[in-house]
């Protein structure tokens, strides 16, 4: 009798399955992952400030190089390609995406690996919560963090060069941005899964980041790329998102590829998220079965 009472005291009610209570618990786990990442950030204020200004630092070479190339702000050739010759607006609207590619590839992709470095991955693995929560918690944190970096970029560009944008296009542009982020989350989950198997996963992350930054029309229109590269770029959400956002935000912009960017992004969202979750579950099972969690 006494033994049963003791067991009852130790029993913890964990919601499970497809229930509202479980969803709430998982969302809480994601939120706590986000809070933990912010606490680590604020523990190193110098590093936090450096990361906040780094989006401006990395955007500057694209801007200055572009301005020197054309000897001003207006490029005739760019205007012939996409209808608008304003190099500053074109680079700014493109470069803000680079940081969000980093969100998926580096922050989410390395969330599990980071726990391994801290020595806390096993502890996270034995908690009665989805392992994906850890990755998604980091996704929330890094999206907000990158959002702050983007605000810094905007303020810098606005006060240094001045920026003319179509205000009425902000709402649909944000819709496109949200769709792109969901698709990038799926992509980030794939990288996180790969980092569980490939212990030197930074090479995978860096390779994906480099390829995406070349194939996405960040600092140049898609038409500059060879045809095969243009077709390959359609699998990354940044390509339709950049074209769509520029269409809404930059006056006179003529999209280099005709098509429904919303539909394209919805399809990419579904495909990348399903593919990401599928790969993550397979990898998760595999590393536990092989006992690879502790391996460096």
């Amino acid at each position, binding site marked *: 009798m006494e033994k049963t009472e003791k067991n009852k005291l130790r029993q913890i009610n964990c919601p499970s399955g497809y229930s509202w209570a479980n969803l709430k618990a998982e969302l809480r786990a994601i939120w706590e992952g986000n809070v933990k990442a912010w606490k680590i950030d604020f523990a190193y204020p110098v590093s936090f400030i450096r990361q906040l200004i780094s989006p401006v630092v990395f955007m500057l070479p*694209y801007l200055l*190089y572009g301005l020197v190339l054309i000897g001003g702000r207006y*490029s005739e050739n760019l205007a012939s390609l996409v209808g608008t010759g304003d190099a500053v607006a074109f680079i700014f609207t493109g470069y803000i995406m680079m940081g969000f590619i980093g969100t998926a590839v580096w922050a989410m992709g390395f969330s599990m690996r980071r726990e391994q470095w801290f020595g806390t991955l096993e502890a996270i693995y034995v908690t009665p919560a989805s392992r994906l929560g850890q990755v998604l918690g980091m996704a929330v944190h890094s999206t907000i963090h990158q959002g702050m970096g983007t605000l810094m970029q905007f303020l810098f560009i606005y006060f240094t060069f001045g920026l003319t944008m179509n205000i009425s296009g902000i709402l649909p542009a944000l819709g496109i941005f949200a769709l792109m982020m969901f698709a990038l989350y799926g992509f980030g989950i794939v990288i996180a899964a790969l980092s569980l198997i490939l212990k030197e996963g930074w090479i995978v992350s*860096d*390779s994906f980041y480099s390829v995406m930054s070349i194939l996405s029309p*960040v*600092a140049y229109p898609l038409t*500059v790329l060879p045809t095969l590269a243009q077709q390959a770029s359609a699998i990354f959400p940044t390509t339709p998102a950049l074209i769509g956002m520029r269409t809404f935000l930059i006056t006179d912009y003529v999209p280099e590829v005709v098509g429904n960017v919303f539909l394209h992004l919805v399809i990419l969202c579904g495909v990348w998220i399903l593919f990401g979750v599928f790969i993550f579950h397979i990898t998760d099972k595999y590393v536990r079965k092989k006992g690879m969690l502790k391996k460096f």
Partner: protein
Amino acid sequence: MTQTVYENSSLQSNLFVVWSEFKKNMKFLTAYPVIFVFWAVFPIFWFIPFILQGQAFVGGLESPSFGLVAGTEEYIPFIVIGAILNSYVNTLLYGVGESIRREVLQGTLDYVFAAPTNKVFVLIGKAISESVSSTIFATSQLALSVVLFGLDLTLGVVLPVFFIVILLIMGLYGLSLVLAAVSLMYKQSHDVSETIGYVFYVFSPVRYPIESLPSWAQVVGKLIPLTYALIIVRGIMLIGTPLSEMYFEVLMLLIIDAFLIFAGFYMFNWMEDKTKRSGTISHF
């Protein structure tokens, strides 16, 4: 009767330390062939967007307005040379600057410090191995750039360019010694390395001519060894200026090198002494 290294002359012993440290680091490098291939090839992908941006903005391979400021209208070789020389900054600053931190993380710093040798020679060994690996990577990137972007490279320019690269490496050694000293005392030198990397990236003519910066930023840029190395190497390779005509830039590079090396040795010895006294060597 076996002769240990400590029975040898001081110079021989120190050279043995440098050689051992060099061998150790080269073993680390060759133990991960994927990482080796990555650094030899992938940095090219980081400057391809700038080449494509150039084609989109000017519609060709030459830009007259770029030529007015840079001295050459061909922006592709300008970008390629900037990126390859900047790769030395990346590897030497982060590699040597954080090597002490890496020993802490690997749990081997205490043993290195307990060894009866001057620690500066340990760092020299690390720096030489980083320079050799950087040069292998830079050569590979240069060879790929010749094939992919038609970069014109003649044997006549190789020797003076190599001389300037050695001068650049000397300055970066000094700076990385300062970073290693910071790492000894304050453990997290990563942010300092990153911030210095930012300063180099923005204020040096890596992607654009220094003349395109505001005048105050040009003053900052002229305190950086990479600025002079880039001006000289581009002058030799792109404009065809003889090295003797760029004696001022060479002299400036030598002065900055001397200052950085002196500051590096002084700071490292000072910080080493300080950490030994405070007993914080193995602290994380």
